[in-house]
């Protein structure tokens, strides 16, 4: 049963064609949550590590030479891109890898395309420790996390365009899971995840739902 099913999937273009074994892309992420998103999207096509530990305060990671070596070997580097990981420039400088330097094709910023919250009116210390560009803790919101995943996918495809279909498929699976978890299965079936996400992002979802009879 299995073999005919696989042949059928291949003929219909549902399975990726077999090819020579490819070395996984080497990805370094500043935060473990970004690394987890890379695994979700890239699967076996990526070899990912994170600099900060899950139990570590990401603001205060000590830049170590071993991290610089990881970055030296990386094909893709993922960072928030704001003023959360102030230790990143030191490591990039030490690594000397132009591919993952800011502006390089392997440099990916998680915040791109995200509407930032909590942008301070005054960049001084009257309000204590502030992030001057806005709140960089993007993944506390599942829909912003989705945008981070899209940014990561864009970066992975830029570095390895021949694997774009694989990364797109990984992003689609992840997006579906987030939509189901946030909006519920029945609502997603009824209106579709992208529509619900769009309404949630522009702030019209609750008003819409209150005025509908299902």
């Amino acid at each position, binding site marked *: 049963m299995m073999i005919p099913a696989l042949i059928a999937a291949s003929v219909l273009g549902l399975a990726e064609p077999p090819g020579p074994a490819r070395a996984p892309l080497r990805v370094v992420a500043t935060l473990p949550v970004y690394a987890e998103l890379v695994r979700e999207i890239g699967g076996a096509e990526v070899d990912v590590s994170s600099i900060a*530990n899950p139990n570590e305060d990401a603001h*205060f990671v*000590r*830049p170590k030479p071993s991290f*610089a*070596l990881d970055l030296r070997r990386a094909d893709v580097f993922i960072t928030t891109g704001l003023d959360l990981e102030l230790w990143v420039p030191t490591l990039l400088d030490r*690594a000397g890898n132009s591919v993952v330097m800011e502006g390089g094709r392997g440099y990916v910023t998680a915040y791109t395309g995200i509407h930032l919250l909590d942008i301070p009116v005054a960049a001084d210390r009257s309000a204590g*420790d502030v992030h001057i560009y806005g709140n960089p803790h993007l993944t506390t919101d599942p829909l912003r996390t989705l945008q981070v995943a899209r940014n990561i996918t864009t970066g992975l495809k830029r570095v390895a365009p021949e694997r774009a279909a694989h990364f797109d498929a990984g992003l689609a699976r992840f997006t579906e899971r987030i939509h189901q978890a946030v909006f519920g299965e029945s609502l997603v079936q009824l209106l579709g995840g992208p529509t619900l996400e769009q309404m949630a992002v522009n702030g019209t979802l609750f008003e819409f739902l209150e005025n509908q009879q299902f």
Partner: protein
Amino acid sequence: MALHALPFQSRSLTHIALIGEESLAQAGASARWLLPVGGRAGTFTATFEATRSEQEQLFGHSNELSWLGNLNAFWQLSEATDLDLSLSWVNGGYTDEEGTLSLDRNLMGAELSFTWSPPAASRYRGFNLRAGIMMLDGLLPLIEEPGGVPQPQASDQAKGFWSTAELRLSQSWLVGGRLDWVENPDNVEETAWLFSPTLTWWQSEYVRVRAEYDLLGLHELDNEGRLHLQVTFSMGPHKHETY
């Protein structure tokens, strides 16, 4: 490195005696290579520099090139602990003001740093121990009195060591200490030592208040004690971080 970034009020006694108040900052070319090994074998960085001999204490009035080589090795011993070992060598020529005396000089050093910093509590607990040795050869001859005949020194090498330790007690409070010992390169039979306990309070990430007591022992002189109080403010995202 700026003085405010040092863990103490001043550079080590060994550093001051053998190199000077200023660090070895000279114009020239530098190349750095991050060796392609890692993991349990450690991370290695090699640096090579060719610079113009501008550091007066080391090279006098020489205009020749001086050479520096450094190998830094780093091992991550566990999630919380790491070890740094650095070996350095500097070679250059010393020429006196009149150009009548020329010496070939070598400065060699080894430095070790052990750090314990648990990731889950690195802002509240931590410990760092640093220690180093230095040796300078090509010493000037000894002139015991003005106008006297220069005599070779008892040794052609001046040596010294330095050590510092700092323990983080909480987010704001740290205690530390240092112990240095060095031979005077102008007369290696004279030695000096320095012991300094410190207490540091971080008012915030941007304001640091530090008290340091320096007990200095100089050859055949009474010990000398000094209390320092240092307040450091910083602005912007650059804090008192070292790499």
